[in-house]
């Protein structure tokens, strides 16, 4: 008899019966010729969309098409930080909704996504940083997101490895903390959604690249051309992050998106030295320590548009230089890996959600450097739009139309995103 439910009891049981009693977490089906909904992109957002479509709206005949392997793009390349400390109400509502979904996610998916609300501290290195933080924290309070200004002593207590000395290259004047922020295991989020969606009958088709779109005489979508043949569907959704422009062009429209490489780094495992997430506004560098002990480090974008998932040495040098300055005891720590994901940067650093100029084709893109934290929300909102034909109230302000109406949600300026 095979085991599908994950529990402590079943781990013990399979310990006696042998590991072959575990079933694969998802199937590897051949694509059918037609689906009710086709989702392009087997990252977190695409898989979550398929899951919520099936669970909440009862749609059964769904395919997720993935060019490579699921969770192999930005979902598997980010630094796993989850937070909702944004400036504008639209963003606060969106990202806080996502945190709330993350809080119940392991239980809902029966898959441990290791969501750890270890808090996040943003450091102020100047009087100006501190002033803008006051404004930022005030705005978040009005929007119902609980964050608080914390002083030097509290920061020194929470982050003992930080250089707080009078001669520090980046002096610390204070900071603010969101206690509900934290990290989750990124692969587990993709795998958890994949397993749950698959068990509801969603076909997850890997190694299947979309090469074009087929449209009816009236312009509406009738299916996608793929490396594994034509797949018909009247409802198609795009969730492909850095490659959104490419696919949009194939479908016949353009996007206000530029793709950049964003790098991340992980060190050799260390004993516990850091139990929260720390972000430095001046250097754009943030780090946390994984449960395995590796320090997970992220920084600012590479300096020019790129589709190369490897990153450039000058950015490596500036990010790691800042880490060595701010955390002198880490100066000799060795690195295990460095990589880059291709992120879809939009001028106002807010996502693009909803309808496209092509009838039947919806989009979820523009999350830029922060898509991982929004996976449960992105999936819920896109599923809502596909199933009901109307944008979810939380998604409405993030439409593609905002670029011509001028109603931008400028988090690039509002919450000090470093690009």
């Amino acid at each position, binding site marked *: 008899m095979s085991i599908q439910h994950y529990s402590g009891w079943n781990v013990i049981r399979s310990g006696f019966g042998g590991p072959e009693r575990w079933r694969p977490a998802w199937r590897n089906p051949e694509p059918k010729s037609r689906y009710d909904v086709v989702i392009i992109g087997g990252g977190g957002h695409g898989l979550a969309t398929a899951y919520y479509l099936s669970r909440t709206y009862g749609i059964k005949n769904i395919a997720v098409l993935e060019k490579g392997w699921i969770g192999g793009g930005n979902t598997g390349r980010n630094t796993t930080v989850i937070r909702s400390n944004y400036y504008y109400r639209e963003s606060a509502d969106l990202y806080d909704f996502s945190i709330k979904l993350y809080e119940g996610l392991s239980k809902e998916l029966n898959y441990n996504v290791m969501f750890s609300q270890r808090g996040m501290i943003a450091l102020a290195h100047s009087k100006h940083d501190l002033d803008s933080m006051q404004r930022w924290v005030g705005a978040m309070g009005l929007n119902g997101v609980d964050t608080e200004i914390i002083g030097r002593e509290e920061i020194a207590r929470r982050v003992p490895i930080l250089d707080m000395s009078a001669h520090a290259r980046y002096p610390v004047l204070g900071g603010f903390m969101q206690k509900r922020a934290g990290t989750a295991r990124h692969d587990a989020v993709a795998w958890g959604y994949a397993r749950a969606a698959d068990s509801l009958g969603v076909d997850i088709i890997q190694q299947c690249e979309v090469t074009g779109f087929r449209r009816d005489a009236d312009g509406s979508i009738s299916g996608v051309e793929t490396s594994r043949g034509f797949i018909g569907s009247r409802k198609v959704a795009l969730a492909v992050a850095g490659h959104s422009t490419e696919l949009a062009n194939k479908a016949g429209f*353009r996007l*206000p998106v530029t793709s950049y490489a964003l790098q991340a780094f992980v060190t050799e495992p260390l004993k516990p030295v850091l139990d929260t997430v720390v972000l430095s506004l001046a250097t754009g560098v943030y780090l946390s320590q994984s449960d395995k002990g590796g320090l997970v480090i992220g920084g600012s974008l590479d300096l020019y548009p790129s589709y190369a998932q490897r990153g450039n040495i000058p950015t490596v040098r500036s990010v790691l230089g800042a880490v060595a300055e701010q955390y002198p005891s880490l100066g000799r720590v060795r690195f295990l890996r460095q990589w880059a994901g291709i992120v879809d940067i939009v001028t106002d650093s807010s996502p693009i959600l909803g309808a496209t100029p092509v009838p039947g084709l919806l989009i979820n893109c523009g999350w830029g450097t922060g898509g991982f934290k929004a996976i449960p929300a992105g999936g819920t909102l896109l599923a809502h739009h596909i199933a009901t034909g109307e944008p979810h109230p939380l998604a409405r302000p993030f439409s593609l139309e905002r670029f011509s109406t001028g109603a931008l949600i400028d988090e690039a300026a509002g919450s000090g995103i470093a690009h």
Partner: protein
Amino acid sequence: MLLISCPWCGPREELEFRCGGESHIQRPGPCESVSDERWSDYLFTRKNPKGLHYERWLHAFGCRRWFNVARHTATHRIEAVYAMHEPAPIHLEQGNVL
């Protein structure tokens, strides 16, 4: 690390430069006849190709002059450096095997 040949200073490390994004974008006009959609295109819509990209660069820590670069966005290979007033060297795209 890119080695960028500034037309005035010669080859220098990428750290001395700043990328100014897509080049050859024409401001539409006259302004009273430009629709909101067209204006939005001008301000925000970008080609963002996976392939050859014609972009503006500034030699920020050098001569502080602007020039154009034709660069492949997946390999980062620089195919041409040309002056701001020159047209894009589109002939490069045909022989571009990538």
